[in-house]
């Protein structure tokens, strides 16, 4: 169980770190709105890649953490409950 927690935590922290950095590049126009501004309208190729990567990292962090903290333990519990 501790291993599952560490895997989910590592995924969550690493992915959200990348999401925060990319959000700081593309979604932080000034000091007042940080990480939450809409995506820039015209972005170059690298910008489009980075914005897509940002969304992917966000959902990877959320779903990865949910997978290891909720889904897999639930499956394990269900398996032991069915096994009894």
């Amino acid at each position, binding site marked *: 169980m501790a291993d599952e927690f560490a895997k989910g935590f590592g995924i969550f922290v690493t992915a959200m770190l990348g999401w*925060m*950095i990319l959000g*700081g*590049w593309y979604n932080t126009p*000034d*000091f007042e709105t940080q990480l939450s501004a809409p995506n820039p309208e015209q972005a170059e190729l690298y910008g489009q890649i980075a914005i897509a990567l940002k969304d992917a990292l966000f959902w990877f962090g959320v779903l990865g953490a949910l997978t290891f903290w909720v889904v897999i333990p639930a499956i394990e519990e269900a398996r032991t409950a069915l096994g009894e």
Partner: protein
Amino acid sequence: MTEDTDTTDAEEPTEDVAADGGPAGEASGTPSELRSDGGEETATDGAGPGIVPPDDETPAWSERKQRSQGLSRLTYEYFERARREDQDLRQESSYVERDVLGFPAWPHEMIRNLAITSFFVGMIILLSATLPPHIGPPANSGSTPAIILPDWYLYWSFGLLKLAPLNPELSLLGGQKLMADRTFGVLANLVVVGAVAIVPFLNKGAARRPVEQPFWAGVGFGGVVFAFTISAYSVNNLIPMEPTLQFDLAFLLPVLAACIAYSVLKSMREGYMFDLNRRYYRLRPPK
């Protein structure tokens, strides 16, 4: 091992067999000279005679060897090698046997410390390279800002300066206040700092975890909540709430939180085997 340590150690285990019941049962089958010879025989966990084994639930060395795959195997091999090095050091030196099990600072502790240091230095470099801080326009020293506040970690002290409703109007003085509100606020700072300074003398910190002393855990939790509520009260002009209500909450919420923490910890203590844990951590008194 020198000759004196052998002779001093030779008498001690016989007392232990008489004193506590646990090891006596295990040692009954072994020859007496093997057990009385504390100098040569090193315990399998690397401890000399100085450490009391926790209880019967301690895994035997053969059970530990069964951890033969993955991370547990790596951990096992690491500690086995560390224990072996420690044992070799003890045997080749004439230094008196230590009472506390430990590993040498180099490399065991230093490798871990270097790993932690590298992680944090790397994180600082990464963040400072990718997210350089926002540098605003220079401050205008000619105009006074609308909101004047200390740094956030001093909000609690700033809130204690706003305790004017607590400053009593004494009828003895004809409705006058004994001191100005600002003097009262400064004295309130002294009272709070004094209370924090007195706590270590009232409680020596013998508990290893909050359930062992629910009252003091409740006091500490109430203090933490009071730090937050009084900090929030210090910025009450920024919080959309009635200031009098917030003032009352600043003092009622910590008491409520302390009561809840106390009752929760007290009820947790019912089923908590802290006797077992206390025995686990207890070391034999020094010779």
